[in-house]
């Protein structure tokens, strides 16, 4: 059998097994919630299948998926950045600045420019991580984490300082003309994910990226530039995350507010989705949807008295078991 097809099939088997296993564990745990196993499973299912859950999940899907598909690319090259969080934030900041302070009116062109500018700023921020790694040998995990804090600092400075509006630590909301619809936002990140997938499968950079991670010395020997490969993935990853930030601002947030040290969390959820998606942009998109749904189920379940931390634990269980089962299954498939 074709190895690629085989990988997909075994991955899918793992996904299904992982979901089944996590449902089983969830039910066992759910029986302790006071609702009983049956009651809990009813609530869980109805919340999972409700239309509200899905429509409220999609706005989260946008930044998570944009982070995840880019991170999948970076991780494939062995470049373990966690900087998507900061790039999403600065993307939002960049889009806000360009639209609100520079262009000042809404139009398709203005909105497009804002999103592209968000991508550009994200790329620069990502490129900084790549450049530090390539030029000075700075570990990308550390530098990107620090840059995330700087991004949080920038947002907090802006909303409490120059961009503050009306006495609160937040900016003025964008007028309705400066916005994009949910479907447009989803479409943007799905297309970006698709393009990344094609980039990996069909361009020579896909070969370079995999070689750099799996056999650095072989890559070096046969003329693949390690530094240039890492820089390329760092820039692309930042670009896509930045676009996600821009789309997030224009669709869901509409204004910037002060943030805690944990940031918005989408970039970090993206890390999970990238691994969960088997380090493939398309897989990362699917995993992002799963994570976004779990994220939005949280509020539905809370209405039924299931505590927030319990839902968080459930999410972690689901993600872990899917990850474990897909890994096991893929490994079996490789034999």
């Amino acid at each position: 059998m074709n190895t690629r097809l085989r990988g997909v099939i075994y991955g899918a088997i793992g996904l299904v097994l992982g979901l089944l296993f996590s449902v089983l564990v969830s039910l066992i745990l759910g029986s302790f919630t006071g609702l009983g196993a049956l009651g809990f499973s009813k609530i869980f299912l109805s919340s999972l299948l409700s239309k509200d859950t899905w429509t409220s999940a999609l706005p989260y899907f946008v930044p998570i998926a944009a982070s995840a598909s880019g991170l999948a690319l970076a991780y494939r090259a062995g470049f373990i950045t966690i900087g998507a969080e900061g790039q999403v934030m600065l993307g939002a900041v960049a889009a806000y600045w360009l639209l609100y302070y520079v262009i000042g009116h809404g139009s398709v062109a203005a909105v497009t420019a804002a999103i592209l500018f968000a991508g550009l700023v994200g790329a620069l921020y990502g490129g900084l991580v790549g450049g530090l790694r390539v030029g000075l040998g700075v570990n990308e995990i550390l530098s990107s984490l620090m840059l995330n804090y700087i991004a949080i600092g920038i947002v907090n400075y802006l909303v409490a300082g120059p961009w503050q509006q009306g006495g609160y630590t937040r900016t003025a909301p964008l007028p309705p003309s400066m916005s994009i619809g949910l479907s447009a936002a989803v479409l943007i990140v799905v297309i970006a994910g698709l393009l990344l997938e094609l980039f990996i499968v069909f361009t020579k950079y896909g070969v370079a990226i995999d070689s750099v991670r799996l056999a650095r010395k072989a890559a070096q020997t046969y003329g693949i530039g390690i530094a240039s490969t890492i820089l390329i993935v760092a820039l692309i990853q930042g670009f896509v995350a930045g676009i996600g930030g821009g789309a997030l601002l224009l669709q869901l947030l509409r204004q910037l507010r002060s943030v805690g040290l944990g940031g918005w969390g989408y970039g970090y959820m993206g890390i999970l989705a990238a691994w969960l998606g088997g380090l493939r942009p398309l897989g990362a998109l699917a995993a992002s949807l799963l994570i976004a749904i779990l994220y939005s189920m949280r509020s539905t379940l809370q209405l039924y008295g299931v505590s927030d931390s319990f839902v968080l634990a459930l999410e972690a269980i689901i993600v872990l078991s899917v990850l474990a089962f897909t890994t096991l299954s893929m490994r079996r498939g490789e034999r």
Partner: protein
Amino acid sequence: MNNGDKRPLLSLRNITKIYPGGVVANKDVSLDIYPGEVLALLGENGAGKTTLVSIAAGLIKPTEGQILVRGEPVIFNSPRDAMRKGIALVPQNPMLIDNFTVLENLVLVSRLAGKRHGIRLVRKQLEDLEKKYGLSINPSAYVWSLSFGERQKVEILKALLIDASIVLLDEPTTHLSPIEVDKLLSLTRQLADEGRGVVFITHRLSEALRVAERIAVMRRGRLVAIVSRKDAHVDQLLSYMFGEERIKRLTEIVKRRRSLPRGVRKDIVLRVNDLWVRGPHGGFSVRGASLELRSAEVLGVAGIAGNGQREFFEALIGIRKPSRGMISICGTDVTFRDSSARGRLGVGIIPEDRLGWALVPGKSLVFNTVLGLYSSPKAPIRFSIVDWRAARKMAENIIRSLEVKAPGPDANAESLSGGNMQRFIVGRELYKLPCLLLAMNPTSGLDVEAAERIRDLLLEEAARGAGILLISEDLDELVEVSDRIVVMSRGRIVYEAHRPFNIDKIAEAMTVS
């Protein structure tokens, strides 16, 4: 045999080892080792010799069978159990802790063997051993700074330190110079004369005949014969090792090779001038090497491992920056340029390690074809887009024309045997129609037949007109295929030999610096 009155020190009974994946490494092997004898375990690569002694040393567990030490059945869960029963393995590639000093490594071993000796006592013991066996070594040297031969010395000292009664030497002469080999063989004798049982693994007939009382021959995981040295005949041992049929085939290969046409030597395809290259630890590993190679010529670089060949090779292929000097390939100065510059010039590269250096593990042969051709003009890449269909065809061609045994172009590179991997690599590099082929130990770890096939391919390529630089630790191989041999010692080219080669002179240049 005069061992009838003695009890065996170590007995292996019906040992079978099947690795996960179904490879049968040992099949029903039974063997006794007596005190005071050297038993040579003879067989070609992949015959199962290393697996057998690894089982005896507790490194791996047998699938079936029993181990007896002095007649008493034992089960080894780890090498520590074997050490405490007095069994020591001197592995082919020393297994020491690089960041420890010699003394620290020895203290560790003595602890593992159950002796609570402090560092001072171990130092004292080490001094005694040095005197007794003439194994001098600086106890406070870090292992990473030692040469291969020195590391092996440390491994032998480990065995002596725990006063092992059974010493298993796994291919101990592989990386040693002729003089070092002599010393090792007499040390081996001395160990046996003191009443130890010694197993000496080798694929070299001459060594087995020189050192052992009894010779056990393994082929394809089975023990095919045990003969005493007195009754041993070279022809018979060879046929035990390889089987009659294969000997016939190999003879034919060698005969056919002699009749190969030679290409016409013209341009200089590689010129190296006063090249200085630093090694991984900062000092100069290559010190002013110079050489010239013409098209259609095979230039062998001989030398004992660790004399700068690796760094020299890495500088030539563009993954290690020289400090000064000049490398020019097909007339282009590439001294300070990376490997992609070599790729564009169509240089073929056959590195020492197959997986991880020549091939990306976990990826298909199609992928690895694209990798190898990545920067070459023959790459199936147009405007940065990979033509996977063309790549697949290339991989199929390579598999077909070089008779690579693989399920197909989509097979995982890792799943191929060493010989087939190397054939694929060579085929891929030949696909570039290289003007220059740089190869380092291209036949190491291959069985005799696979190695001969690779040498054939190199010679055919030279006949086509490529210049071939062959860096090899195997002097026999160099003598067989090279038109010219230079010897590298301590980073310098110290000797140049032309056909017909005077082996003694070359060996001398390798060992005397």
